[in-house]
C-alpha cells in the first residue's frame, strides 16, 4: 500500500520546493507534482521534512518504568516529529555492556520510532574503568556517554577518546566538573543568591569543555558536547571549530527558552542539569544555533513521575520533558528560517549520530521513508495531561506555542496521522 503526502512544501538539505511525496514499501517512491497513492495524507500549508533525530532522550527503561518506557517515550517522540531517538544510558542497570544494549534494542524494535541507544563510556557510569565499547559498537552503538555524569578524570577521558576513535564511534560529554558543581541545584548567580538555593557555576561546565577541546586536539578524536548552556562554552566550541578541532555540540530546547528566574517558583519542574541560566547565556545558545557553533537541538527529554517532582527543590531529581514540544519551541523562540530549524532537528543531528542516509533526508526517490509533516503556523497550548509521555513534568504547561506536528512516518509507516497515534 502506498501513501501520498499531498500539497506540502518539501524542506531538506537540498532546498525547498512544492511537491507531493509518495511512500511505498518503506522507501520514498517519488517526489514531484500531482502524485497519487492508496492513502492520502493532507499536507496543505505544511512543511514536509526529514523525520527528526533526537541525540538525547532519557527513555528510562530498564529501571524507571514508572516515569517512562521505551514505548511511551517513542510515542512522545513520534508526536514531536522524531523518527529516531538516541536513548541515554543512565538507566538501571546502566547501558554499559552488550546485554543491556540488546535489551534496549529489542524493546526499541517494537517501538513506533527507530530507537538507537548510546552506551556508557565507563562501567556503571562511575568514571573508573572503560566500559566494553567494542562489544557495544558491534551491536550498532555509535555514541558513548556517561550522561548525567561527566568523565571527571582527564587521563581516563584521554584513553576513552583514543579507544573510541579506533572503533569509529564518538564520545559525547556531559560537561560538569563535580568538585565545582557538587551540592548545587540551580545556576549560581543572582537568583540562587536570592532564593537561598545552592548554585552550580557556569565554570563547572566550561572547565570540562575547555579540557575536552584540548584532549580532542591532542588525540585527534572527535568529541560531542551535550546540552551546552553557557556563553563561555559556546564561544570555546566556536573557536575550536574554527581552529579545526573536531568538536560538535548540541543545545537543549529549554536552554534557549527558559531562564533561571523560573526557579523563583521553587517548582522542581524547572530543575534541570545543566541548570537554566540567565538571559545572557540563553541568548548565547540562540546565537550559537544561528551561526552554526551549535550543530543540533536535542531535547534532553527527562521524564520523572509526579511524586519525584513534588519534592523540595533541592531533593527533586533534575530533568524535564522535551520530545513533544521541541519543534514548537524552536519555531516560536528561535528567529530562524524554517529550513534551519529543520536542519538543527534532522540532518545535522543525524550526521552526529552516524545515521546519515537513514534519517535526516534528503527527501528523494529511493531514500528510507522517515518523514515529519508539520504545520508551522498552528498555535496550541501545552497541556501536561495531553502528552504521550508517561510523565507530566513539562515546564511549558499553559504556554502558547506555534508549530505542530501533523504526520510522522517511520520506515514507511504512518505512525502519526492528523496528530492521532496509530499503533
Amino acid at each position: 500500500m502506498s501513501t501520498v503526502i499531498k500539497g506540502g512544501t518539501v524542506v531538506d538539505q537540498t532546498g525547498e520546493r512544492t511537491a507531493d511525496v509518495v511512500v511505498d514499501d518503506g522507501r520514498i517512491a517519488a517526489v514531484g507534482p500531482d502524485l497519487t497513492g492508496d492513502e492520502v495524507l493532507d499536507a496543505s500549508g505544511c512543511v514536509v521534512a526529514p523525520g527528526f533525530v533526537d541525540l538525547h532522550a532519557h527513555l528510562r527503561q530498564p529501571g524507571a518504568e514508572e516515569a517512562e518506557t521505551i514505548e511511551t517515550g517513542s510515542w512522545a517522540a513520534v508526536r514531536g516529529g522524531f523518527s529516531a531517538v538516541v536513548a541515554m544510558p543512565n538507566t538501571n542497570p546502566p547501558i554499559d555492556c552488550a546485554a543491556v544494549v540488546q535489551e534496549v534494542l529489542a524493546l526499541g524494535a517494537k517501538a513506533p520510532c527507530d530507537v538507537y541507544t548510546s552506551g556508557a563510556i565507563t562501567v556503571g557510569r562511575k568514571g573508573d574503568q572503560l566500559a566494553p565499547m567494542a562489544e557495544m559498537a558491534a551491536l550498532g552503538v555509535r555514541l558513548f556517554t556517561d550522561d548525567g555524569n561527566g568523565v571527571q578524570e582527564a587521563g581516563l577521558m584521554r584513553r576513552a577518546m583514543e579507544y573510541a576513535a579506533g572503533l569509529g564511534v564518538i564520545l559525547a560529554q556531559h560537561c560538569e566538573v563535580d568538585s565545582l558543581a557538587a551540592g548545587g541545584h540551580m545556576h549560581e548567580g543572582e537568583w540562587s543568591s536570592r532564593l537561598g538555593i545552592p548554585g552550580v557555576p557556569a565554570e563547572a561546565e566550561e572547565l570540562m569543555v575547555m579540557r575536552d577541546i584540548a584532549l580532542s586536539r591532542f588525540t585527534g578524536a572527535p568529541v560531542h558536547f551535550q546540552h551546552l548552556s553557557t556563553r563561555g562554552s559556546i564561544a570555546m566550541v566556536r573557536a575550536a571549530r574554527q581552529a579545526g578541532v573536531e568538536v560538535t555540540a548540541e543545545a537543549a530546547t529549554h536552554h534557549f527558552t527558559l531562564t533561571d528566574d523560573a526557579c523563583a517558583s521553587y517548582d522542581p519542574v524547572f530543575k534541570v542539569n545543566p541548570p537554566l541560566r540567565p538571559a545572557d547565556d540563553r541568548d548565547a545558545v540562540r546565537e550559537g544555533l544561528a551561526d552554526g557553533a551549535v550543530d543540533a537541538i536535542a531535547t534532553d527529554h527527562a521524564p520523572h513521575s509526579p511524586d519525584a517532582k513534588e519534592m523540595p527543590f533541592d531533593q527533586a531529581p533534575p530533568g524535564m520533558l522535551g520530545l513533544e514540544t521541541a519543534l514548537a519551541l524552536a519555531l516560536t523562540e528561535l528567529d530562524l528560517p524554517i529550513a534551519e530549524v529543520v536542519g538543527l532537528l534532522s540532518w545535522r543531528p543525524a550526521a552526529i549520530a552516524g545515521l546519515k542516509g537513514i534519517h535526516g533526508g534528503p527527501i528523494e526517490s529511493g531514500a528510507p521513508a522517515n518523514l515529519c509533516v508539520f504545520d508551522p503556523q498552528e498555535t496550541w497550548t501545552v497541556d501536561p495531561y495531553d502528552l504521550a509521555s508517561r510523565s507530566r513534568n513539562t515546564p511549558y504547561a499553559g504556554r502558547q506555542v506555534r508549530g505542530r506536528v501533523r504526520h510522522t512516518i517511520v520506515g514507511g509507516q504512518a505512525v502519526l496521522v492528523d496528530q492521532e497515534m496509530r499503533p
Partner: protein
Amino acid sequence: MKHLLSINDLGAEGIEEACRLADHFTEVSQRPIPKVPALRGKTVAMLFYEDSTRTRLSFEVAARRLSADVMGFSVSASSVNKGESVRDTVATVSAMGPDALVVRHRSAGVPQQTAAWTHASVINAGDGWHEHPTQALLDCYTIRDRLGSMAGRRIVILGDIKHSRVARSCVMAFTSLGAKVTLVAPPTLLPPAVDSWPVDVSFSLDAALSDCDVVYGLRVQQERQSEALLPSLREYTAQWGLTVDRAARLPAGALIMHPGPVNRGVEIAPEVLDQPNATLNEQVRHGVAVRMAVLYLLLAADPDRQPEGEAS
C-alpha cells in the same frame, strides 16, 4: 495577607504595623494572666522538619496567648520517618482543619510549596538558606525598641551570610526600613552575586565596627572548616570574631545582636554576651510578641479591628 513566606510579603508598612501590634502584645504578656481570646477557636499546626528551640517554643507560646489551639508535629515521632512526602504530610495535617501551618524545613522553598498544597495560612519559620521572616521581624522590633527607629541606622551583619536565612530576611527588612547594612565576612562566606544585594560589603571587621549602631552576629558552624570555606575556626575567631577587645571599640550604645544559637567563643566571646548592650534575651522575648502579631494579622477575622484587651 494570607501567608508569610518572605519578609517582603509584609514590606515596610507591614513591618511597622506588626511592630505596633507587638507593642500591644508585649503589654499583654506582662499581665498576670498573659492571654487574650483573639484567636479562640483557631488552630495553629507546627510542622517542624528541622530542630528548633526558640522559634518553635515561641510560636507555641504566641498561639496559646492568643487562645488558639496548637497542633504539634515532630518529625522524629511521625510518618515522615516512614517515608511520607512533605506534600502528603501537609495534606494529612490540613485535613484536620488547621487555620495556619508554621513550617520549618531544611530545604529552601518548602513553605512556598506548602502554600500551594493547603487551604491554611502558611508561616515560614525558616527554610534552608532562604528566609526566616519572623526572626527579621523580631530583630526590627528589638532595634526599634532600643534605638527608637531604624531609618539611617548603620547595621553590620557579621559571619556566615552565605548559609544564613536570617541574613537574607534581615537585609531586606532592615534596608526596607531605611537602615544602611554592611555585610562583614570572609569572601567564602558571602553569598554569590552579593553585588546584587542592597548592601555594602567589607572583609575587615575592625574597619566596620568603628561607626555602627548595631553589630549583628551570625552562627558559624564547624562544618564550614571541612568544606574548605575556612582554614580554621581559630583563624575565623581571630579575624572576624566579636572578641572582648573588638566589643570595647564599638561606639557607645551600639547593640550586639545574635539570632541564636550561639557558638560561644567562636563568633562571639562569652563575656560580650553578658554586656548590657547585648540583646539576645530581649530578642527571644520580643519573638513571642512579634509572632502573636503575625498570627493575629493572618488569622484574626477582621484584621482592622484592634485586639481586645480583656484577659480570658
